[in-house]
């Protein structure tokens, strides 16, 4: 990442929100998985709150991304980011549909598939899409 990008206020705000949120996410996933010596409640509201907890930092990351897009001062960079996001969206929806049907009808990784992976799948495809978009406008 170039120095000029880090100096950009929108980019700085994005990173200041995203990295702490991802750290909280990791901490919460480790906590509810029992890796930090804490056990998940067996039932009741506590169980649901604990289960939902790691999704909240992801919500913060999604919000940070949305705010970053709207605050970007460079129209060209914004257009490239939006294109990459939408291309990533299309690829994610296709991947999820294909994988979902394979799991449902051919029982491929049926027990391992979780909706939790949709966000990482999108991030992965968005990176690929960003490369494609950058190559296109080089």
């Amino acid at each position: 990442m170039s120095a000029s990008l880090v100096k950009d206020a929108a980019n700085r705000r994005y990173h200041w929100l995203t990295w702490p949120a991802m750290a909280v996410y990791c901490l919460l996933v480790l906590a509810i998985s029992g890796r930090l010596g804490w056990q998940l409640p067996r039932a009741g509201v506590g169980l649901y709150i604990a289960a939902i907890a790691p999704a909240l930092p992801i919500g913060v990351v999604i919000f940070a991304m949305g705010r970053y897009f709207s605050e970007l001062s460079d129209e060209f960079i914004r257009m490239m980011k939006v294109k990459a996001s939408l291309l990533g969206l299309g690829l994610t929806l296709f991947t999820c549909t294909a994988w979902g049907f394979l799991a449902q009808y051919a029982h491929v990784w049926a027990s391992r598939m979780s909706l939790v992976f949709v966000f990482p799948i999108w991030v992965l495809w968005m990176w690929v899409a960003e490369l494609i978009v950058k190559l296109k406008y080089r």
Partner: protein
Amino acid sequence: MNASLVKNPAVRRYLLTFLPSMGAYCFLLFSISGWFGWEPPKSGWGLYLAALSPSLPIGVALFSMGRYLCEAPDEFFRMIQVQSWLFGLGLTLFTCTVWGFLAQYAHVWSLPLSLVFPMWVFWTGLASIFVHLRYR
């Protein structure tokens, strides 16, 4: 949809790709579910091809939506669509994460991954109402 919209070549091209692909999707989904009296193979390549088949028309539908967005002549309409899609994306990703963790740790019913596309369509539809209201 009004007549002037259908006369637009971008809209016509979109409808001519999107609607048949959704028809094919329904047909293939019903077929592999055994509604037409046909049973998918129990194993081998045939099973995987049959399982994957309904996702191909979804790919075509997604392609037609993307092409429509690129070809739409009205800049304002395109901006509204992009905003709705991005809001729909954010809401879908958040819903999936919440639901996924609930299914994994609180053992609530897990939504199949194949329903992520309809979920995005739902959230985008809802988001487009708010985006339209914002720019009214």
